[in-house]
């Protein structure tokens, strides 16, 4: 069954390739050992300078980005970057299964046999020792350990005080503003179908979903994969097929190595975005999440609480038990 489903997603991705129009295709620069980053973006121009800088410094060699009908000039900006290939589309984000079809197509075509990192422009990837070792150290180690996929939980970051209190300017480290997070209120259950863990919790569950916890957004992600053209992401990067790739956790008491995606969605840009998304209704589950935010944000847009933790570094997250070095030392 899952094999059929995987096939379906791949065929679908193949068909959706026609949505995409290449604006600057620099994929001929990609060398066989390069680490690639895949992303979809819409009107994230303000975030892109820091985003590109962050991942370049980490050691990403090439960026493959789908622009979904931006109107803020971010497409031109991306087209000017020497290590970015960018495609544009005016097609529906929703009907491309929230961009997954586009990602799957680009990965199928360019990602085969590469380590592929799939992140949104508001996600900053952290892995153990990321302050002292480039991402290639991680992928070399994963290769040597015969590990094909690497999990990184989404960790919602938020400012202290109103979300719109401090304006974010291009190139700025978003963690200067959104530097707080919830350390220990995550719940986990296993998805028997795909074998992935389903993680919920954090400030969004605590503030917006106290009545309907089951609807709180999923936080589990598998963003880093040694890609093979037969693989396919299923639902965002929450899970993929074949399902062995979702087994990024240990079931016998040990800890596998894992990272964190710092989710810097809650900046001053968020309220505008939430309103826009409400109009477009292009997000998951009838944009219920955004409706909940719009409701919650009207009353009290302060996600901060007395027990919020201030972000320091990955080692702090390791100690808190949000990520693990596993066997890597």
């Amino acid at each position, binding site marked *: 069954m899952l094999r059929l489903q995987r096939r379906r997603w791949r065929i679908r991705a193949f068909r959706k390739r026609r949505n995409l129009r290449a604006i600057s295709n620099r994929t001929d620069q990609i060398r066989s050992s390069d680490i690639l980053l895949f992303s979809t973006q819409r009107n994230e121009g303000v975030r892109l300078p820091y985003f590109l800088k962050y991942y370049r410094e980490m050691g990403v060699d090439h960026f493959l980005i789908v622009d979904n009908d931006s109107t803020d000039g971010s497409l031109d900006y991306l087209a000017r970057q020497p290590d970015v290939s960018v495609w544009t589309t005016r097609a529906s984000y929703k009907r491309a299964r929230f961009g997954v079809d586009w990602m799957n197509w680009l990965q199928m075509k360019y990602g085969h046999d590469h380590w592929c990192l799939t992140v949104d422009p508001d996600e900053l990837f952290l892995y153990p*020792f990321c302050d*002292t*070792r*480039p991402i*290639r*150290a991680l992928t*070399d*180690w994963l290769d*040597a*350990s015969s590990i094909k996929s690497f*999990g*990184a*939980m989404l960790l919602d970051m938020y400012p202290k005080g109103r979300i719109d209190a401090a304006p974010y300017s291009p190139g700025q480290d978003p963690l200067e503003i959104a530097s707080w997070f*919830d*350390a*220990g*209120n*995550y*719940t*986990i*259950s*296993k998805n028997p179908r795909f074998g992935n*863990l389903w*993680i919920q919790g954090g*400030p969004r*569950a*605590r503030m917006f*979903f*106290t*009545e*309907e*916890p*089951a609807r709180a957004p999923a936080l*589990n992600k598998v963003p880093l994969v040694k890609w093979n053209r037969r693989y396919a992401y299923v639902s965002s990067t929450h899970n993929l097929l074949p399902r062995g790739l979702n087994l*990024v*956790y*240990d*079931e*016998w*008491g*040990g*800890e*596998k*190595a*894992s990272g964190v995606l710092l989710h810097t969605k809650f900046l001053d840009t968020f309220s505008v975005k939430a309103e826009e998304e409400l109009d477009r209704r292009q997000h998951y589950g009838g944009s219920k999440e955004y409706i909940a935010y719009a409701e919650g944000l009207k009353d009290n847009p302060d996600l901060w*609480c*007395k*027990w*919020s*933790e201030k972000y320091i570094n990955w080692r702090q997250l390791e100690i808190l*038990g*949000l*990520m*693990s*070095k*596993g*066997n*890597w*030392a």
Partner: protein
Amino acid sequence: MSVGIVMLVHTALGRAEQVARHWTAAGCPVVIHVDSKVPKAAYETFRDALEIDPMIRFSRRYRCEWGSWALVQASQDASEMMLAAHPDVRHVYLASGSCLPLRPVEELIAYLAERPRTDFIESATTADVPWTVGGLDEERFTMRFPFSWRRQRYLFDRFVELQRAVGYRRRIPAGIVPHMGSQWWCLTRQTLTAILQDPKRPKYDAYFRSVWIPDESYFQTLARLYSTNIESRSLTLSKFDFQGKPHIFYDDHLQLLRRSDCFVARKIWPHAERIYDAFLTDAARQKNRMEPNPGKIDRIFARAVDRRTRGRAGLYMQSRYPNMGWENGVTAGKYSVFQGFAELFQGFEPWLTKATGAQVHGHLFAPERAEFAGGQRILNGALSDSAALRDYNPRAFLTNLIWNTRGERQCFQYGPADNTKINWQISRDPNAQFSVISGAWAVPLFKSNRDFADLRQEAAALQKIEAKMLDELRSPDAKARIRIWTMAEFIEAPMEPLQLIIDEIGQRPSRRLTEAPRLEDLTGFGQFLQNLKNHGMHPYLMGDFPVDPAPRHGQRPQRKPYLVKK
């Protein structure tokens, strides 16, 4: 007299080149074996770069798979070439392309010159060490292994099973006792030539050719035949993880490596610029005459193995989600659950806080909200008091609470009116101290001012729930420290069990409890129970309460006044 280096190289040729030059610069001749898997062009560039150095030679190339005989052949050939070409070499050091000398080569030369008869080779009998991966220890010497463990795992496993099933055993050549150990050795010319020129060598080679992982046993076994002085340790610092692959050193290990005082380390990540720079070019390092001391590195890697195999107790997270029974600690720390105490005693929670110094919560699993200590709405780790969030996954709520408050003892109240789904989870947790006064839920009912029909209904419901909870606590699977008293039992001598519980919590140095919590006034409670019985609802969990004699004159026995001594 000098030290000859045999280098087995298969990747990162650039680094191997750097290291080879480093050795020869200090006067050590080098013989390099390059794996035949290395493409011709890369090999030739590498060779051209190094061949001009008269101290460097290249030995015959073999195709070296992990754990294959070819690795031994490569070492044999290269060693023969070394010994023949450099008669002044007294020790031969076997190293890989990703090995890096950490101390000035002169120090290694001097160290070995002081020990001219010593062979440094880790060598232990299979019976005595649990090193082996894959469960094959003695069998690796008594079976045949025609299939590759890496590439033909299925056939490898089946063939092992087959040999086990039919009881196949090879004969070990007479005179040798299988030993194994790290493949990186440093042997004297005497020992090495004795091995290589042994007339029985064809016989031994034929035997070891089909031993599993011969590179960890060939020299380790044969050295035992000829060496007069084996120091069973490797001079190469090399740590292995739980899968048996070497740990890798990165730039952030620089200080650790410096302080280890080891002569050579492997494996170094080829892109670890700072490490290579520091150890290959930094000539101004202080000389030391210390013995190698890898203790600290050992601890770091031992911790990594422990983390990967056992993990942190009580942690549930994205990369650790143990199956039931494999948690290795259901929760992160000890905690106490009190059922019926807050009902029976006035001000039990403040009293308990004072007596133990622990964090004392109300009913954490109460229907309206989690009653955190001090009426807080949110607790450590931003844990919310929302009942809906809590009941969405009560186990996660509890394990999160205990994890978030590591280092601070947690106590909470519990009872049949709470969410009881968590009851059996607690009962199977050895970290829980679970104390129950059964039937105490009747006290608040007795005190309340409600219609008797309501009371009767609720009492019946609570009794049913608590009976089920007690069954769970009495199940053979229960692993918590569980104590159950009936209410009648408890109030007879309340101080004794209280003292027991408090001592066990053990937060403060044990002393006699000076102040007991105040019992609720139970005058009329027996009659209340009797009334329930009269209405057909038999309360039994609280034990036997006599119906108190109705006070005839509306008088109570007077308490004696306290004596105040001066």
